[in-house]
């Protein structure tokens, strides 16, 4: 902890982590205290993240952003934290979504203490993954970020029972069939799937570590030193898929994506936000910051597969979203589709594509957070998420509708919102490497327009039924959250210079390290 920035990194993880531990001792019935306490934690994180983002030194030395502590020397494990151009926006993303998630969770009254403890722990895990530069700790935090999900969904989530839905009319809304999806199923599947992914990652980590140890005679889990080792091409080609698929599971890589819609649907609002908004990014981040960095040749060999699967993600997710009738499923599949752009960007192994991928992580995170926040409000007010039943809500919930529309427009790549810039960069990268897939990706964006507009037209437009006469629009707090998220989307949609500059400063050395740029 040589400098203030180092201390800030440390605090970024420690504040939510110890904050959660301290919360254990709070009286469980002091709801207001618990809410405000968690908000304070989130706010501290937000302040730190904003500070780090604003003052980030794109061409200075990164040494000042480090923490280093020998934790388990036998295996070469050190508790090291660092910040790079890639992680800076992601840390900010996490801080923003956490803050927003906590704020929209004002209505959590069922055991709020436990809820916020788990939520806060999860967030500290996410910070940890972004900041850790030691593979062990990266994995450690990765798991920490996954585990609380089970209870968060299982206890505070909601079940979907299509069999109980009113009969659908018109084409396009029978989608999904008669599938009973209790929240326990979603929670269990999500948990097992993500841990299954992390098992693959774990195998690869251990393999790389052992290989490096036998090559250099020195045990180390530091990503930098692992990356410095020259692994045989064969080894890289064998073990890169472990990283790619293992992390890819969390990123919603097709065909390992199905946990994501089910999980999102079952999860409570704040968890959906964090999960789709931040956690899925961990997967993509892992592929980038671990897989590609450590095993560059493997990454090159597998890049066509990654970008191909990413394209499948884009199209498959979008087309699947067309066939859904549950609001959250639409958004869940849209996340699958949008993560496809991230994966495509990663698969380009090209500077602009990678920039786009990272920016898309950020941008999709904010956007999907906004989505889930608004859908959560609708569900809270109507106790319905069935598109075929909801109609004309715009009359009563204009503000919610406006924010949902903003998220939807972001999602379909409307210029002015940051996703457009991100997707544009991904497209450029893809066109430079695999133009045909680029064309498919652009078409995917058009399909997105179809399902988003269908959703808007169904749910918010049209005549309103008497059933919703007393529907309440967004509360000021909720509206403020929505406005803040939209503002972020607009800010970097209209003028992305700074954030892309930061990302670029992280991507370039990464590619140089891989011997590509």
């Amino acid at each position, binding site marked *: 902890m040589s400098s203030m920035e180092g201390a800030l990194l440390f605090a970024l993880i420690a504040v939510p982590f110890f904050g959660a531990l301290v919360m254990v001792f709070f009286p469980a019935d002091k709801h207001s205290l618990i809410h405000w306490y968690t908000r304070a934690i989130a706010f501290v994180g937000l302040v730190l993240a904003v500070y780090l983002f604003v003052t980030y030194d794109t061409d200075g030395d990164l040494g000042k952003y480090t923490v280093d502590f020998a934790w388990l020397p*036998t295996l070469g494990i050190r508790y090291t934290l660092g910040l790079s151009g890639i992680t800076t926006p992601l840390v900010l993303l996490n801080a923003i979504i956490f803050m927003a998630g906590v704020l929209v969770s004002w209505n959590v009254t069922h055991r709020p203490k436990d809820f916020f403890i788990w939520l806060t722990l999860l967030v500290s895990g996410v910070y940890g993954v972004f900041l850790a530069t030691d593979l062990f700790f990266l994995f*450690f935090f990765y798991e920490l970020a996954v*585990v609380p999900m089970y209870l968060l969904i299982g206890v505070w989530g909601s079940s979907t029972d299509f069999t109980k839905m009113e009969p659908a009319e018109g084409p396009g809304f029978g989608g999904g069939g008669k599938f009973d999806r209790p929240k326990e199923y979603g*929670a*269990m599947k999500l948990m097992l799937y993500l841990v299954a992914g992390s098992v693959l990652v*774990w195998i690869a980590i251990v393999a790389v570590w052992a290989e490096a*140890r036998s090559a250099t005679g020195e045990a180390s889990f530091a990503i930098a030193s692992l990356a410095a080792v020259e692994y045989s091409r064969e080894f890289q080609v064998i073990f890169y898929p472990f990283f790619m698929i293992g992390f890819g599971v969390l990123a919603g890589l097709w065909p390992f994506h199905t946990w994501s819609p089910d999980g999102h649907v079952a999860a409570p609002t704040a968890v959906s936000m964090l999960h789709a908004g931040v956690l899925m990014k961990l997967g993509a981040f892992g592929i980038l910051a671990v897989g590609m960095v450590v095993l560059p040749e493997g990454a090159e060999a597998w890049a066509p597969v990654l970008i191909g699967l990413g394209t499948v993600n884009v199209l498959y997710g979008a087309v699947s979203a067309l066939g859904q009738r549950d609001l959250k499923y639409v958004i869940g599949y849209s996340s699958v589709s949008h993560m496809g752009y991230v994966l495509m960007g990663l698969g380009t192994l090209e500077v602009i594509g990678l920039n786009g991928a990272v920016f898309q992580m950020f941008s999709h995170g904010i956007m999907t957070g906004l989505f889930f926040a608004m859908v959560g409000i609708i569900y809270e007010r109507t106790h319905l998420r069935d598109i075929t039943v909801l109609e004309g809500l715009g009359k009563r919930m204009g503000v919610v509708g406006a924010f949902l529309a903003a998220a939807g427009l972001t999602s379909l790549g409307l210029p002015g919102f940051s996703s457009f810039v991100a997707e544009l960069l991904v497209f450029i990268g893809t066109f430079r490497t695999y133009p045909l897939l680029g064309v498919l990706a652009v078409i995917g964006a058009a399909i997105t327009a179809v399902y988003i507009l269908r959703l808007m037209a169904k749910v918010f437009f049209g005549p309103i039924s008497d059933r919703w006469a007393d529907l309440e629009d967004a509360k000021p707090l909720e509206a403020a959250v929505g406005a803040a998220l939209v503002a972020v989307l607009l800010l970097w949609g209209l003028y992305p210079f700074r954030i892309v500059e930061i990302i670029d400063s992280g991507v370039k050395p990464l590619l140089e390290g891989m011997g590509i740029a």
Partner: protein
Amino acid sequence: MTPDVRFELLWPEFLVAGLAFLVFTLDFFVRPARKEVLAWVSAAGLAVIIAFTVPFLLNEHDSLFDGLYRVDSYALFFKVLSMGIGIAVILGSLHFVDRRLTHPGEYYAIIIVSVLAMMMMAASGELLTAYLSLELLSFCLYILSGFALQDRRSNEASVKYVLLGAFSSGLLLYGIVLLYGALGTTHFAGMAAALEGTGGVDGRLLVGLALVVAGLGFKLAAVPFHMWAPDVYQGAPMPITAYIAVGSKAAAFALALRLFYEALAPAYDEWQLLIAGMAALTMIFGNVVAIVQTNVKRMLAYSSVGQVGFLLMGIAALSPLASNALMVHLVGYSVTNFAVFFAITAFYNATGKDDIPDFAGLAGRAPFLAAAITVGLFSLAGLPFLAGFVTKFYLFSAAAAEGLLWLAGVAMVASLISLYYYLQLIRQMYIERAPEDEGGSVTVATPGVLAAVIGAMALGTVLLGVYPEPVLATIREATAALLDTGSAWPTLGSAGQ
């Protein structure tokens, strides 16, 4: 015939034996209502002996009786661990004994004797001594598992345990004798030397080894020698289940590790794959069958069968790193399992139920117990901030470093499976609601002592997960001792590469 035997180095053993006799004797003088004094005496006695033993044997390094009995830091580590386990079990069973068992004096005394047996298993440097210690431990456990005299299941457990135990000791002894025939000695060091000397591999050696593996496998509960375990775990009184799961296993691994390290290391190539295969089979079988269990004890029994598979990796890899890993995993496993088992004991004490659905809504009825069980189960599944994460990571890395990456892969998949059934229990506790009738809404009270033990174990689980280095430093010392004596194995650390 044996000059200069430093008998004083056996003081700890003598003290423990003396403590056992003291408790036996005291039993006659303590009024039935105040039998818990015996538990306190036992626990305090063991604590005092630990306090005495550690400074007394620190840095001692000696082989008594020609290597028959070892006094080294490896043995010291397991002595302390055994006594610690003993203390935990004694305190953890205090209330259980009070409410559900007779003969408390004998109960505690037998536990102390079994602790002694465990201590000697880790210190044995010779097959027969090891066998006798093991048999002593087994005898104690046969008795203890049948200690709930009026309980059909407890009796069934002890019948199965004793008959299969006798059978397995027949196998083990035959194996020992065959090894004796093939190598001419039963001393570990001598065996290693003889193994190095022989060019070809004698058939008796292999059959003997197979029988020894079978006999030890029984003790370790490794597939396919594990079959007694679920039944005995389920039937035995709850604290004894914990004790069998933790203590007996720790001691058996202490013995097995020393045996494989000091005696059988030269034949590494012969048995590595065997042990690795057994490890894989064990972890898959244990975890897969655990999925379909409905009784908590039985589920945990299969889970601990699965855990044996992980631990066997440490033997299969056989490197200093792997030994460290095995030992640290053993420590983590002990602490974690105690946390879970004692929490379940507390639940059982209060409700008399031990089926998984009975735990519905426990988070509301007994948040502390639910939290402890959750911590323990998550640790067993290898989730971060808990002992299981670090120790598994260590263990799997060590296995991978010796070229057993495939085994590490199987182990990781097995831990994934284990997560599933652990989550089933967690789901009952946190997500399901307590049944309205049948006193489901009654809060589960945990007596102070038991709560303290559970708390300590859960805390230990967390501490080990957060900062394992101090424990590891100790373990490195202990392994170093193993390496010194196992000098017949010069190429350690590079095996398998």
